[in-house]
């Protein structure tokens, strides 16, 4: 990871300043990103990062011994997997597209429906989902990390704990810490916008930025701020994706809600496309949230096709067409009934749409740019 001295400017570590200071130096925010928020009870240390890295890539935490976190969050694929929906053990398919975990540290909630509040709490769920890593409980993980000599060392260094002192709390903290270091900014856009390098983006991308903040209205949710750009508002919107899978009537909605209550959100939404289509509603039961999904970041978006929560859009061009038609790939399709009020036809010309795509491709960080 590249670090930038300018990223240190104005950096505030809210707690445990002396411990964190070293961490902040090591993981200083790159151009265009704020300092990484770090929970007070889980400061970043190099030892924890090293441990988390190993846990993240360990396939032994799945029933088949073939799937790790990195299976679906593959560094070579922008920490996503390039599939419409992810495949876990025995090629079992879920219902949702693996989001990149680059910059996930900045998100206020985790998962497409925001059902977990932190990287730590998120990290424990895929182990147990039948279509992901398939474990019945976390015991097999603890058995391995408590007995494997390499892990013993790593946990001892990171937490000062060995044997039965090691619990899922430490596993989750190490995974969260590793993910918190996957921070990436400094894209051509960042150089152009925050550093004033007018040559950093192509003329098409510069025109695309105009569309992005203007007629395209992208910036309303994928936010760019004065000194930083997370490209998300951390909110949930029903933009029309998979609208045709949504419960059509009360019976179907009740059945989907019942499914969530019986199986728990994590298992229910990944095993049934209709339940998945509830989006944020499965968490809040608020009607505004029916079919609403979290605004994802757009950083490194070029690397993480296909797009949307169900991977239903193959290319960025398709995504732009979808928004231009007001939440439909095909203009002849009906407008989804519960569409967010923010989604409306944009009347962009072909040229504007092409410029917008050029701009989106200027959001790739240099360390991930295809050589």
């Amino acid at each position: 990871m590249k670090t930038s001295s300018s990223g240190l400017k104005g950096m505030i570590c809210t707690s445990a300043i002396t411990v964190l200071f070293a961490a902040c130096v090591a993981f200083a925010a790159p151009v265009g990103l704020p300092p990484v928020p770090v929970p007070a009870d889980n400061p970043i240390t190099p030892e924890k990062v090293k441990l988390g890295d190993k846990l993240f890539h360990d396939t032994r935490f799945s029933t088949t011994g073939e799937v790790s976190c990195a299976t679906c969050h593959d560094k070579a694929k922008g920490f996503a997997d390039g599939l419409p929906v992810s495949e876990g053990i025995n090629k079992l398919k879920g219902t949702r597209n693996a989001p990149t975990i680059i910059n996930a540290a900045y998100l206020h909630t985790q998962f497409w429906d925001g059902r977990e509040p932190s990287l730590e709490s998120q990290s424990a769920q895929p182990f147990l989902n039948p279509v992901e890593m398939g474990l019945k409980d976390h015991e097999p993980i603890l058995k391995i990390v408590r007995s494997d000599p390499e892990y013993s060392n790593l946990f001892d260094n990171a937490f000062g704990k060995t044997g039965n002192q090691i619990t899922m709390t430490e596993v989750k903290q190490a995974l969260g810490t590793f993910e918190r270091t996957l921070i990436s900014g400094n894209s051509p856009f960042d150089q152009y916008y925050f550093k004033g390098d007018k040559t950093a983006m192509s003329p098409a991308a510069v025109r695309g930025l105009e569309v992005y903040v203007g007629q395209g209205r992208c910036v309303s949710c994928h936010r760019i701020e004065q000194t930083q750009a997370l490209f998300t508002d951390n909110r949930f919107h029903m933009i029309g994706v998979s609208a045709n899978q949504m419960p059509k009537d009360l019976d179907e909605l009740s059945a989907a809600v019942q499914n969530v209550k019986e199986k728990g959100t994590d298992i229910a939404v990944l095993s049934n496309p209709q339940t998945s289509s509830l989006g944020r509603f499965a968490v809040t039961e608020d009607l505004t949230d029916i079919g609403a999904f979290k605004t994802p970041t757009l950083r490194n978006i070029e690397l993480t096709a296909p797009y949307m929560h169900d991977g239903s859009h193959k290319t960025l061009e398709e995504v732009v067409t979808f928004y231009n038609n007001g939440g439909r790939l095909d203009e002849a399709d009906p407008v989804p009934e519960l569409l967010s009020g923010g989604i409306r036809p944009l009347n962009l010309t072909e040229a504007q749409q092409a410029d917008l795509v050029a701009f989106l491709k200027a959001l790739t960080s240099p360390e991930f740019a295809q050589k």
Partner: protein
Amino acid sequence: MSMNRRAFLKTTGAGLMASAFPISLVKLAFGGQDPSRDFTFGYISDAHIQQVKGTQFVRNWDMGLIRAVREANLLTPRPDFFMFGGDLAQLGKKEELDHGLEIMSSLRGKVRYVIGEHDYYLDLGKYWQEKISPLYYSFDHKGVHFVVLNSILTYHKWTYETWSSPMDRMLAMARLDNPQGSPFMVGDQQIAWLKKDLAKINQDTPVVVFSHSPIQKIFKPWNFWTQDAEKVQALLKPFEKATVIYGHVHQIQYNQIGNITFHAVMATAWPWPYPETYSQSASCLPKITVPMNRADPFFERDATGWQFVDMQSGKTAMHYQLPDNRNRTIAFDAATGKPQDVTYQDYSRRIPPQTHY
């Protein structure tokens, strides 16, 4: 629906269905004195369907009504009936009324209509009466007497002798703060009908009046006003429980005048700001608890919505369904003898208005 699910629904029964359903839509029990008379009805209002040209209509207003209908279809248990509170159209055109009716046609359940000035002033209610509803009428349901008024009439001279075309008249009435505007009224003919209609009703029978304009005087320049409101109020005075539910104002309002409880309903189209106090006559409206300003113009449904109404032994609880905002409930409070916001009435719970810079 698959056979499995059908079987499932049959065997699980109503109790589980209720628990499986979002709490926001489950009828709240207020402990009415006579449960056999307790029921719920839905209320959608002020859709302002507006034709751009040909088959093109203003998307935003369409989407508001479509959302309300779609959400109302999820209401469980099903309401006994629905009301539409007026201003289905923006400029009273057949095309607008037809398009609005088409959207309303997917609403599951009986719908009754109240006419608004935007539906009326083009053809003076001709198409409305042919296609939709009488202009004023009454009906009874589970021991409650309901009256629908056409409260948006005005002076004969203004209506018939002022304008060069029906559309001029429509546009004049559609304009706010119009110096050439004219106040709404129920009119003596209809008041005479109302007097007769109510004469048949026992005074212990709960009476609910549906009107488009408030049957109380709030703000004249926007016609949040009915010129002869006092005459209607006088006819309601003998009843133990009287309620007026009105549209037009596109915001939550509630008030108590003597025995009469007043509630406004939300619009599906757009919100109005709460008007400044108008000093022509003293307003006894309580202070608004949650100003319905729109925090972010991006969320075009914010500060719009629809509602369902619980009738509990003749008293009303309004459940406002507010997309992109917090749902609210205004219920009659027996202790204070007034309608109150069940969450935000207490001063410490109120949401301060935003400051716009």
